[in-house]
């Protein structure tokens, strides 16, 4: 099981799913109509490291964070 964590303005609790790569996470989230409008603009981190590799493997206990568009300062 891995945990998906929604950061910043995405008002949603963390969820846990079975997934062996980010590709599985993508498939899962693409089915969620509330999230689909966000997906285009989310950056992704695995255990707090940003990644741009959809084939990044996931292990049991990993945490996937979804980061919406930012505006510090």
């Amino acid at each position: 099981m891995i945990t998906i964590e929604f950061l910043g303005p995405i008002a949603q609790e963390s969820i846990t799913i079975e997934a062996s790569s980010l590709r599985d996470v993508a498939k899962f989230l693409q089915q969620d109509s509330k999230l689909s409008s966000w997906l285009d603009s989310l950056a992704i981190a695995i255990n707090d490291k940003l990644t741009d590799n959809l084939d990044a493997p996931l292990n049991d206990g990993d945490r996937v964070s979804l980061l919406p568009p930012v505006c510090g300062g």
Partner: protein
Amino acid sequence: MMLEIFEGALQPKEIFSRWYDDECNANWGAFIPFVGIVREEDEIEALSFDIYEPILINWFDAWQQKAKQRGAKLRMAHSKGDVKVHKSSYVAAVLSPKRRVALELIDAFVEDFKANAPIWKYDVIQNKRIYAKKRSMPMNGAGLLAKKD
């Protein structure tokens, strides 16, 4: 710690004085702080910030390494929670032996901060917190999960 997070508005005079005292004998030639102040516009009463600290720390540490390779050093302070108009929410500074390096780094650092630091901004209007979506930027690499094979 060269990265400081404060609840509510920053105190730029305290920050400047403390940083200046820390650094003034370290033989830097240039010290450039960038102070961000919340502007009064579009009826906002305040801005409000969420920060995801673990990734902010990684982002900052990577920049500190880049600065170090150029002989320079970075410091930064940011607010979380509400910051009223005309108060400061952000101070970033570069220290360098060289003027040119300092000017180039403060520009690149502040611009990348805007684009890639995991901080979310909300307008506070009539006590409601509204995500500043239009002014926000997708981080580098955003959209990964929208890809369909």
